């Protein structure tokens, strides 16, 4: 009899735990990242030795077009470009932002998403920056 009671107690406690776990919403999932914030920034950001923001953005746009992206939005003041492309049945969305860094440089940050996954693979971004650097005739610099 005693054994049965202890079983019941354990069962009820477990039930409560599960019910509580059920209360967690999935909204938090949208804000999760796998890499640390600093590491992600350095993967997605490069510096270029130029201050010509407009030319930089035009080059970003043509590089994205070369990569099959359709440009959806662009803003010179903010320095942002957003485009999307299809890869099989998935949508790749990418935002690139350009902003000044000090007096002589521009910082370019690319941010890509594949379907419902954020792209956090360094090589993928490296490919993009290499293509961008070639188009700008500039060397790409890693940012710490």
């Amino acid at each position: 009899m005693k054994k049965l009671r202890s079983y019941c107690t354990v069962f009820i406690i477990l039930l409560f735990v599960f019910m509580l776990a059920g209360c967690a919403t999935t909204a938090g999932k949208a804000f999760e990242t796998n890499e640390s914030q600093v590491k992600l920034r350095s993967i997605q950001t490069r510096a270029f030795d130029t201050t010509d923001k407009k030319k930089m953005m035009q080059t970003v746009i043509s590089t994205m077009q070369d990569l099959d992206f359709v440009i959806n939005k662009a803003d010179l003041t903010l320095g942002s470009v957003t485009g999307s492309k299809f890869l099989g049945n998935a949508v790749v969305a990418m935002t690139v932002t350009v902003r000044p860094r000090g007096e002589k440089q521009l910082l370019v940050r690319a941010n890509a998403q594949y379907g419902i996954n954020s792209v956090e693979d360094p090589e993928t971004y490296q490919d993009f920056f290499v293509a961008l650097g070639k188009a700008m005739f500039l060397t790409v610099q890693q940012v710490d």
Partner: protein
Amino acid sequence: MKKIPRFLKLLLIGFLSLGIIGCATTPKGFLKPSEGSLQKRQLQSRQYDTIDEEKILTSVAGVLQDLGFTLDESETKLGLVSASKKADAKSGGQIAGAVFLDLLCALGGSHSNATANCDKSQVVKASVITKPGLDGHKTIVRVTFQRIVWNMSNQISKVESIGDPQIYQKFYESLSKAIFLEAQQI
């Protein structure tokens, strides 16, 4: 302890490898320029003998409207106009084939609903970029199209970039005409 039969082992290995394949999520190298990108650029771009980007952009907006597009976004300082259009995607051949397949299945006593997988409607997105040419006397225009297709049960059945040269050809014919018309103030 009996030995595990050979085919069971194979089955297990097969399952495990399927499981590993299932872990692959994001493909790599999709931000690398492909070999055909130069060719695509030539197909999608034209040069115009003017440095008046604003004039080109207004003509582009006019052509897109002529083609039944609605403008979604524009940025004159960078030279961008993006637009989209909903259109019919029904194709007689595809529907006829699907109905025939359904009939055959019904005759054979099984269930099929190929008609529901036929294309119904599509959204075409266009984005036009203008930028000054390298020599400083010309303006380069580049347009890109992509489309999303829905089937009869309102599911997305296809997404693709449009690569048909004729579509680009037609767009630039209209644009050249529109630039001429604007110049003549019609």
